[in-house]
């Protein structure tokens, strides 16, 4: 079951997203070198990102290259946008209220 919310809940995975956002593709060893943890641990995090649809991988020879697909992040953006829209609309009403009081 892909769950983009669970995928971005972990700081290591957010850091992986950040690293991949800066580049076209990165091989596993380059990603691993950015962290204090071992190759297996980083690999596990990448698998969770992959399952959530946030990361794509392809094999080139003996190397695996990873790239970011930010599309699923839209789900989170949409969810936050509901709150944003709700409050932005209410703030316009607050502005009206404050202006009325001024009169």
């Amino acid at each position, binding site marked *: 079951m892909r769950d983009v*919310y*669970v995928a*971005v*809940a972990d700081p290591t995975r957010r850091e992986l997203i950040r690293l991949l956002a800066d580049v076209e593709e990165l091989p596993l060893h380059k990603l691993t070198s950015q962290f204090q943890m071992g190759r297996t641990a980083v690999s596990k995090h990448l698998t969770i990102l992959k399952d959530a649809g946030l990361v794509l991988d392809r094999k080139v020879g003996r190397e695996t290259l990873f790239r970011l697909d930010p599309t699923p992040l839209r*789900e*989170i953006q*949409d*969810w*936050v946008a*509901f*709150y*944003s*829209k*709700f*409050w*932005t*609309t*209410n*703030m*316009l*009403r*607050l*502005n*009206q*209220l*404050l202006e009325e*009081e*001024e009169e």
Partner: protein
Amino acid sequence: MSFTLSLDFQYTTSIEKLWSALTDSSKLAKWVMENDFKPVVGHRFQFRAQPIGGWDGIIESEVLIVDEPHKLSYTWNSAGQENTVTWTLKDLGDGKVNLHLEQTGISNAQANEGAKYGWMRMGGELEKVLEQ
């Protein structure tokens, strides 16, 4: 795992008037929802909207911080969401006040279709009112 909504608004008013709009129950009703709010830490209250879809329209809240006229915070619990809403007021001088909103604890969307639907609808209705 949670997300924070963070928004800033600026108003041409005094910080006292803005504080009053945030903390006076009848004024609050004019721009948020019907409520029984009191600016007293520990006070439990509700915001009440029209029930819609699977959402009962009730937001359960408890006042967490009252620091007149600078900071106000309360919980915002509805349809399985347990959020905290925090208002920070800052006098910018020249009769301008900045109002900062943070809503924290926003979690998974799937369990909250009702609230989502309710808020979307509310947003749409309010827009119509504003256009009049």
